[in-house]
């Protein structure tokens, strides 16, 4: 059983959230959410998780299924098992081979931290 971290919200497998869910901290979802999810901190969506609504957070790692739009302030990572049907917006985006994305991608202007890093090295 995964342990809890103080202030962290965990929705485990076998639990379904129906309605709009907001958190002031970090959120880990392994279960089913049908309603908008927003977190002031980071969101981790596990391999077995299913989200049927929009997701908003500071940063996110998605390994499960999301049917809705995703709006991330900083970094969004789609792992090899991610399955997203919706538009995504993020400052930094990482997509692993094997993940599925059906939707448009919008990245904030001036968001190219890796390129900037190269320039700094030069």
């Amino acid at each position, binding site marked *: 059983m995964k342990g809890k971290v*103080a202030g962290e919200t965990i929705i485990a497998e076998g*639990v379904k959230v129906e309605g*709009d869910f907001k958190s002031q901290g970090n959120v880990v979802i392994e279960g089913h959410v049908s309603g908008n999810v927003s977190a002031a901190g980071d969101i981790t969506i596990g391999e077995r998780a299913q989200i049927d609504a929009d997701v908003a957070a500071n940063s996110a790692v998605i390994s499960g299924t999301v049917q809705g739009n995703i709006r991330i302030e900083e970094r969004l990572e789609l792992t090899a098992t991610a399955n997203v049907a919706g538009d995504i917006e993020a400052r930094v985006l990482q997509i692993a081979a094997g993940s599925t994305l059906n939707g448009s991608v919008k990245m904030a202007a001036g968001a190219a931290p890796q390129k900037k890093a190269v320039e700094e090295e030069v």
Partner: protein
Amino acid sequence: MYCYIYDDFVQDRKHEKELSAIEHRITDLGLQGKIIRLALFRDPESMIRKEIERGVKTVVVVGNDQTVHKIANAVVDGGAVLGLIPVGTPNVFARILGIPKGVQAADVLSRRIIEEMDVGRVNDHRFFTGVSFPSVKTVVRAGKAFDMVTMQQGAVQVKNLAIEPPKDASELSDPIDGALDVEITTYAHRLFRKVPNLTHIPLSTFDVITKEPVTAHVDGVPVHGNEFHFETEAGVLQVIVSRERMFEQA
């Protein structure tokens, strides 16, 4: 001004020696006060309310978690300071507050380190440690925002501190954060074995609803029903703790 609440079971002969030693130590420390002995058909809350009206500032429970539960409403409503001298079991609350058993607890009283803690309320019952439900299908309703539904049987616990004696502070809910921790343990089936999964969410006001009436345990005291309304009262309990308490200072 102190008032001591002796639970019914504390007056058994097996606790006679321990009680005598505690009383001697209290006298040595100059912490004497009125003793109220609980018994069947005596309403502890009304007795304590009267004592607080007469000027008692500190109510000391001599007993276990269930003794504390019996006088919780009167102490919180009266704004008195709660002290503990743990005798018998379970004494999860005293252990979290860092209060040793027996005579040494009197020394903690005399040092008078006071912490302001949250108190949980379920329907008409206040609680300090937590509430546990049996493993059934449950809905946790966070007002109009969302419902959290267990898709299978899941054991729900609502913690202000802890339900089982915690091994260390990491197993403890924060009693000064203005929220209660809702924890649901469900099981996933993986290759012939059941794997426990923990759902955890901090909430301040919510309902726990079961389809059929169940018996929940509020600070270890059984309460029957199928709709349980929870609220958090932030910082309303003043309680004497030791430096060895298991939670951080506010």
